[in-house]
């Protein structure tokens, strides 16, 4: 065994530089917007349902998406990630 294998626990990595900080800010704001839209939708959904006398919190927690919903979820999550990661990498994603 050559080097101490524990040195692999926290490897040195060629990551962002100071010059990337503006891209990072763009990404963080994009992300904040996405998170906000979702938060808003969730709170509105729960309020609408409560108006109809339905408490959905527990059911949401234990819900298993069917295949159709799962593929829609996958598609949406990939799109969100792409927008954020692309901002970070300086790639324009027109959406």
């Amino acid at each position, binding site marked *: 065994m050559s080097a101490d294998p524990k040195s692999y626990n926290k490897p040195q990595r060629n990551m962002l530089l100071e010059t990337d900080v503006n891209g990072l800010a763009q990404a963080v704001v994009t992300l904040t917007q996405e998170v906000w839209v979702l938060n808003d939708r969730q709170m509105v959904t729960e309020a609408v349902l409560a108006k109809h006398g339905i408490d959905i919190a527990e059911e949401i927690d234990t819900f298993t998406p069917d295949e159709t919903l799962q593929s829609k979820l996958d598609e949406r999550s990939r799109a969100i990630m792409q927008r954020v990661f*692309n901002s970070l990498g300086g790639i324009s994603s027109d959406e």
Partner: protein
Amino acid sequence: MSEELHARLRQRGRASVDFLANFGFGMSDLRDSVEEEIQRIVPDPDALPDDLDQRDARMQQSLGASQAYRATQAVGEWMATHHGLVAKHAFEEVREEMEPILKKFEQGGSTVEANPDKEAPAYWDGVDFHRTAGGWDEHDYQGYIHADIVHTRLVAKTFPGGIFAQRRMVAALPPKDHYDKIIDMGCSTGHFTRALQETYPDAEIYGVDLSLKTIQQAQRLGNANGWSWKLFQRPGEDTGFEDETFDLATSYILLHEIPADTIKALFKEAFRVLKPGGDMIMSDVTRYADLDKLAQWRADAGAKYGGEPHWRASASLDLAQIARDAGFVDVTAKAFDPFKYPYVVQGHKPE
């Protein structure tokens, strides 16, 4: 995995795990952009430096100028350091309902012999394999978390070739139709052990692994399926079994997690515990010798940032020669296309 053992995650855990499962797709534009950059800076892989460290330094220097590359590294680092945490948190949300089920499957024909007093080897102890903080044994239910969440819900979703199908394919390769007694070295949570049992339904299977938490999960998997596995927290290179005990000795992607001298010792141990006429099959990651210099660099960087301290040395070994040196005859080695993975070495102990 038996349905009962498969946790029904709560929304937060479920959505977070799905987020991880989709991560590679989320990075696809970045990766494409880095790929173009790599093609530009490495028109001829053969011209890269021979030395792997120098080659990495060259690549890092060139790619370091690319914002997309730096972003893949930063985003990839998040994945490396967070996947274990996300999986653990997802489990904690369902711990209360899962614990009785997990305990139930600790009873049955599959047994575990723990060895808490035996000192763990330096090549394993304290190493965060796969960058999972705390390594294989960090959490009470690390084996379960790894098998049910990390493996089944993440790795299995995207791994080329399919992690379970690949194991079944390899389990069917040994030459005989029937084996009485099998030892699976580095059996971990029992994915390959399962493929062996399904291929040789009457076989009596022994498993050894350094990690207690993972073999506890193998025990649950065995019991949930009505199998009687004998699992031991012992190193593969020093199993403690009598000479000439087994008809088949196996390992599946264990070798890249151990240093070269331990690999040699492990082949010798397999030879020792096999009966005359017994068979050996060991599978591991793509050999560097089967890759061009650029692909080697990719594998090597994956190991460096993926918590795999022994990968480089291990993937650089000629395993067929090591098998012959240990005494095996009729040794064959085959790299399966299209990724030259898994790399499978087989041999035979003379009568």
